[in-house]
């Protein structure tokens, strides 16, 4: 049972399995950290740079029309170098969890 600060998020892992999880919004976590907290990707394959938009290991595809913070230069530049990039690609480490993101649905990009 989640806390009142939790939001519902759906994350499709790299095996194609869909996980409906409660993501906290009161712990200053970003989406990459949520994925790590729920162990939805093996350790060492996500958030390699620690969340500095410098490795793209947390790239995900946003599948819902949830309003997200705009891409900053660092994220934009990293995605310009990453592989498997699509129009809906974002870096999980740059998406801070907020109550407005309730219902967010993302799919983790392949490991590269």
């Amino acid at each position, binding site marked *: 049972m989640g806390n009142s600060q939790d939001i519902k998020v759906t994350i499709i892992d790299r095996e194609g399995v869909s996980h409906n999880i409660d993501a906290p919004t009161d712990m200053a976590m970003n989406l990459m950290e949520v994925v790590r907290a729920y*162990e939805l990707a*093996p*350790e*060492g*394959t996500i958030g*390699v*740079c*620690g969340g*500095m938009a*410098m*490795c793209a*290991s947390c790239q995900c595809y946003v599948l819902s029309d949830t309003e997200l913070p705009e891409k900053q230069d660092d994220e*934009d*530049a*990293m995605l*310009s*170098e990453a*592989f*498997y990039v699509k129009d809906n690609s974002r870096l999980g480490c740059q998406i801070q969890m907020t109550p407005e993101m309730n219902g967010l649905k993302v799919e983790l990009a392949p490991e*590269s």
Partner: protein
Amino acid sequence: MISTDILIIGAGPTGLFTVFEAGLLKLKCHLIDALPQPGGQCSEIYPKKPIYDIPAYPEILAGDLTEKLIEQCKQFEPGFTLGERAETIEKQDDGTFVVTTNKGTKHHAPIVAIAGGLGSFEPRKPLIPNITDFEDKGVEYIIKDPEIYRNKSVVIAGGGDSALDWSIFLSDVASSITLIHRRNEFRGHLDSVEKVQELKNQGRINLVTPAEVIDIVGDDTHVSGVTVKQSGEEDKEFNIECDYFIPLFGLSPKLGPIANWGLEIEKNAIKVNNALDYQTNIPGVFAIGDVNTYPGKLKLILCGFHEATLMCQAAYQIINPGKKYVLKYTTVSGIDGFDGTRKEAPKAVVKKIN
């Protein structure tokens, strides 16, 4: 064969600090790292990022931390095998180990300390279908010796600091340099971007953006060119002749061959006995820093330092069985470097009273 007391696999912060702690116990160290320079993730991925949780440093850049660790351990004269990946480990009849790298360099030691962080850094390869066919035949992911590109035509792909810096450097060495990037904007330092712009204006760098390499052309022996797809009002494809194609898209860590050493692995990390000394299931092989796991593990640099310190005490007892070691403080005992230097606190001056 390189012989040492403690063979350290991984030259990141934990590996480097192990040299210092081992040195205090008069133990010699040799480090192996797949990267061409020491520092691990700190110097390879985020050298200009500040770290805030190193004791006594309210703020320190990752690259500066690495430099200070190297400076701190220099007096204990560590050996380095850089740009090579530890590939195999063989236990000898006397309980010691021989570790061989992918280049065939052999190392012998009674103690092996794996301080490999998240693993060895492997180049991120672009998704070009035939790229692996041309590895070591003109496709290079890491530049080790720029001289091999002298008077050759080189195509570099990427938009970060490595791609910019090597394009600038090789513009003086190669007969031609082409830099290909998926966007018009680059992620590197402003001065590097400006320098590339200047060299482009002088006709010394051929800049192709927004574009990407989609195919490699060549025969069984060597690359002869690349096929480039350039976006614009109308996409176009064309070939660029070259002797070398160097994609520089950063590195990603993989546990690599260590995973096949018979070590107990859990969640991509090596299980150790943290209640004692961070020894693995193979006696004499330790794992310290981000590469290990145990109940309560925290992947922090400062935890790696602590683990390195305890591990060295255990290594001392294995190398010197039965010998009693008394913990000393450097403030009292000073430091005797293997290079003949000695550091000690100045003795207090006591004035004689008549």
